[in-house]
């Protein structure tokens, strides 16, 4: 807390919530959970994948983030998955968790992984404006596996 912290009830529309806004009252770093921090600092599935036979890449038009997903499929199963790209902590963590979830699964099952699966592991309170950061790797993975 710094000395500029004011009485939380002094907001413009304090009746709605202590922050005086529709969603402004909550505080806390929950958007950046421990899992996200850990995966951002030390991603386990980041890097190029030798022998990748399924590759896709796309950008998030909101921020220009670019994610490339590389998968090696053998006998209908995701043998290995990796990602590269310029992306924020949330997007990087999502891609890293997704690659981990995908490995070892049948292609159809891996292509069906969705944001609920990833969010279940990230354990973070992702704001609506950042959901695209979570979903970008998921759509790119799906693209790679279905084309």
């Amino acid at each position, binding site marked *: 807390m710094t000395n500029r912290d004011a009485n939380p009830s002094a907001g413009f529309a304090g009746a709605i919530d202590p922050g005086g806004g529709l969603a402004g009252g909550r505080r*806390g*770093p929950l958007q950046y959970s421990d899992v996200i921090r850990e995966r951002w600092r030390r991603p386990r599935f980041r890097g190029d994948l030798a022998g990748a036979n399924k590759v896709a890449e796309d950008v998030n038009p909101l921020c220009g983030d670019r994610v490339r997903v590389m998968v090696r499929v053998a006998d209908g199963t995701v043998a290995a998955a990796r990602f590269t790209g310029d992306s924020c902590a949330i997007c990087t963590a999502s891609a890293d968790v997704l690659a981990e979830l995908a490995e070892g699964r049948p292609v159809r099952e891996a292509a069906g992984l969705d944001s609920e699966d990833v969010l279940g592991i990230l354990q973070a309170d992702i704001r609506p404006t950042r959901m695209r950061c979570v979903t970008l790797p998921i759509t790119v993975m799906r693209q790679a596996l279905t084309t």
Partner: protein
Amino acid sequence: MRLDEHTRADFPILERIVNGHRLIYLDSAASSQKPRTVIEAMSQYYARSHANVHRSIHTLGEEATELYEAARERVQRFIGAASREEVVFTHGTTDGIDLLAGALGRTLRAGDEILITDMEHHSNIIPWQMAARDRGVAIRSVPLRPDGTLDLDAFERLLGPRTRIVAFTHVSNVLGTINPVARLAARARQAGAVVVVDGAQAAPHLPLNMSALDCDYYVFSSHKMLGPTGIGVLWGRRALLEALEPARGGSEMIKEVWIDHARWNDLPWRFEPGTPPIAEAVGLMAAIEYLEKLGMDRVAEHERALARQAVEQLAAIPGVTVFGPPATVERGAVVAFSVEGLHPHDIAALLDQEGIAVRAGHHCAQPLMRWCGVVGTARASFSVYSSPEDVSLLSHAVGALRSQL
């Protein structure tokens, strides 16, 4: 008294608590906050005087028309335009450029060129691409020098007999670079081109005088200069507007209509089809009144000092890169920066936890981001209510960022 001490209490939103902290709003270049007088002028208008303008022969219609046209005259004086016929209300800067690109585009032929710059906002790129498309018209762009200013030698080289339109920003929304409008405009006109200036980041911060700038068209938005969203201004030289065939049609912009043809209305209504943003014009008028009371010279001086302070304090933090001209050069009220190892969106989200609102991303200037060699940046921007304490709190928070993620 410092300007922000004088103005702060006039902006009710600055009382907001965000994530447990007093709001530090440093995203005014995206959209500024509104003083109480603007909010009240608009609600008074809706509560007392609202009706459609121009053809309503009753008391409210006359009041609404009077207010709408008074707003136009207020804008005319604010920007030093020669007559109110030169002031066209649009829906914003993007809309104004799009209107021009549509109308001027029709006059282009195969082989013609449009000259823009590498520091343009997408709003001053895409409409020109659309005007050029399918017409065999080429788009050329003036590169930047390493210090983030336009390469004026390259400008001279690129300006040729085929250049029909030269479009550039007055102040960069990322680098804060202030372009020498009058100088560029004079050269472009000598070469026979029409000059369009994007004033979105200049109108809120600098004293403007159209005859001094001496360009052909100048566009800006209300919402970045303390006014409401949904309205903007297109200023054009009267002789050029007279000769420009409107590309958008509908009511209001006509004098007489037959089934297969029509006669256009006089200026400026010729370029304002449909019911205009009336309450927004009233709000814009109140915003201009507010700015004029402060004095635009004082506003410019206040924000220049904040930009200088931000450049100096941020650049002194290890791992922080500040983009654009150095602190010694006069620049606009924006400061873009990056923090080594942190993505701009994470910077903005972490600062938001401290109640500090900054912009992050490509700032609708992807070609410029490529020039900067980054995907995006964070950006702090200032207005009349921004204070040196706001800037210091930002610098303090930015300094602590790397330990947080």
